[in-house]
């Protein structure tokens, strides 16, 4: 039995509609453009929003990289990559950032800066940063339209009162091009500055919530903060104040995941597996030279 799919699984009409929404999203940076999210052969919440963007943009000349939890080898990343390989004959896939033209990710933006030839697609579970302060979608739309984000700042105020610092670890509310505030997907604070003036186009797809938004290249992206309590990325310093290195490759400039060893001690390693491999290979090369 053989089943034939259209290239990219989605029909051309559906892909065109997604591309139209993408164009609108690029034209109004940070604005959540509604689109009619299609049923995909996997549960919503497994990156269907990002996948629909990827499938609508991908052509035979593209090279795709899929990352989940910073890794190309996680089950989710492998499934999505295989799905694209199956439904988009002729498309190349890779795990190396420098070979990729299209990158789909969820929890991370790669450590190595993106280039103007690359497009990053982020899968987003909850597109609207205002949902934590306002349950009514109609009211949220008005608030976005008027750039009324005082209540998000109140959340930050309460955070500082309770913990002496802003403790939001993921989905840090970020103002795009001086107006719309976005939820930048479950990326850590570490990755938020990479949105700012990025040379690459960054697209966000929320399948369940049926929204697409964008940070176009060279666009301002400012995390919400107070004048006297600025935004800060995570610190990877040890108790002595020294920057922890990755225990695998030795890098001291990457976002580290923390693992607990069997004896209860902690181990730190790059979250971006491709970056870790690259640094490790370079270190070996240098040692052999």
């Amino acid at each position, binding site marked *: 039995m053989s089943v034939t799919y259209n290239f990219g699984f989605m029909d051309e009409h559906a892909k065109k509609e997604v591309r139209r929404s993408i164009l609108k999203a690029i034209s109004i940076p940070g604005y959540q453009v509604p689109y009619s999210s299609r049923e995909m052969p996997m549960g919503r919440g497994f990156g269907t929003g990002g996948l629909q963007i990827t499938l609508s943009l991908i052509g035979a000349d593209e090279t795709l990289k899929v990352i989940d939890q910073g890794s190309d080898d996680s089950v989710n990343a492998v499934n999505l990559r295989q799905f694209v390989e199956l439904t988009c004959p002729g498309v190349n896939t890779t795990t190396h950032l420098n070979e990729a033209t299209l990158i789909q990710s969820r929890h991370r933006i790669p450590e190595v800066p993106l280039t103007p030839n690359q497009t990053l697609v982020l899968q987003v579970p909850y597109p609207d940063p205002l949902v934590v302060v306002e349950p009514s979608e109609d009211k949220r739309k008005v608030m976005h339209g*008027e750039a009324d984000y005082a209540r998000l*700042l*109140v959340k930050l*105020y309460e955070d500082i*009162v*309770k913990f002496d610092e802003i403790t939001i670890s993921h989905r840090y509310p970020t103002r795009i091009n001086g107006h719309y505030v976005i939820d930048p997907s479950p990326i850590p604070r570490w990755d938020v500055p990479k949105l700012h003036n990025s040379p690459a186009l960054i697209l966000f797809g929320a399948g369940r919530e049926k929204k697409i938004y964008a940070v176009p290249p060279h666009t301002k992206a400012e995390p919400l903060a*107070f*004048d006297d309590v600025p935004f800060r990325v995570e610190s990877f310093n040890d108790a002595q104040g020294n920057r922890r290195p990755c225990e695998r490759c030795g890098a001291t400039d990457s976002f580290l995941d923390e693992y607990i060893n069997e004896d209860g001690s902690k181990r730190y390693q790059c979250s971006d597996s491709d970056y870790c491999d690259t640094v490790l290979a370079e270190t070996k090369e240098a040692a052999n030279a």
Partner: protein
Amino acid sequence: MRKILEVRNLSKIYGKGCPRCIESTGPEADTNMCPHCGSVVAIHDVSFDLHEGEILGLMGESGSGKSTVVKNLYFDQTPTSGSARFIEEDAKHEMFNLNAAQQRRLRNQRFGMVYQNPHLGLNFGISSGGNIAERLLMSDVSHYGEIRERAKELLSRTEVLLSRMDESPAAFSGGMQQRVQIAKALATNPPLLYLDEVTTGLDLSVQARILDLILEIQQERNTAMIVVTHDLGVIRLLTGRALVMKYGRVIESGLTDQILEDPQHAYTQRLVASAL
């Protein structure tokens, strides 16, 4: 004294209305509901002026429309017809011709509101200080230290214990919640404050202290206020002028002392007599 508010022919009808609504409602008709179409004429043809630092009372029983007046002036509702002009030193605003963002600016920065029900004026999901922070953040103060300082000043001015400023107002007594509401309303130092039955339901001793606080604030800041109440004691203590309302209409207006000493309208006479 400079005039800051000019309200003319303000009307609010709930329902689609019909040509006979006006003639069929009001004190003479003894109802605010139109018998022909079922619409409620909450207020009709309300006009008054308010000057800097003045406290004006809106008195009447429930259903008189007194709360509807301030809800419209605070943009909680949109009037059916009529106008209101808010006059600042350097600008005049035709309040009901402004767009939503301009109305929001007036509401957040130039007006303050204290509701009878603290749930309407306060967010119980955040701390008392956070409630004040919200209002400051809405008027673009973006310095944490400054917000914190101003919240402390306001709460100590309204006699809320600073040791409790980081607690939710949900944990506070009714009187304390009103003090937090007043502090929040004052956060942007607005020239105009609306007070809607702010002491109703509180113990008499608590009421007296809050009324004192309101008078002190009016004297310190020269804040103009519109006080909505059914309580003649509140009218007598706070206001210099008053409007008496019944079924959506103003039936008597003038200096508070005169209204209370020598009421002209039979309805006002009954109100005053029953309060003695």
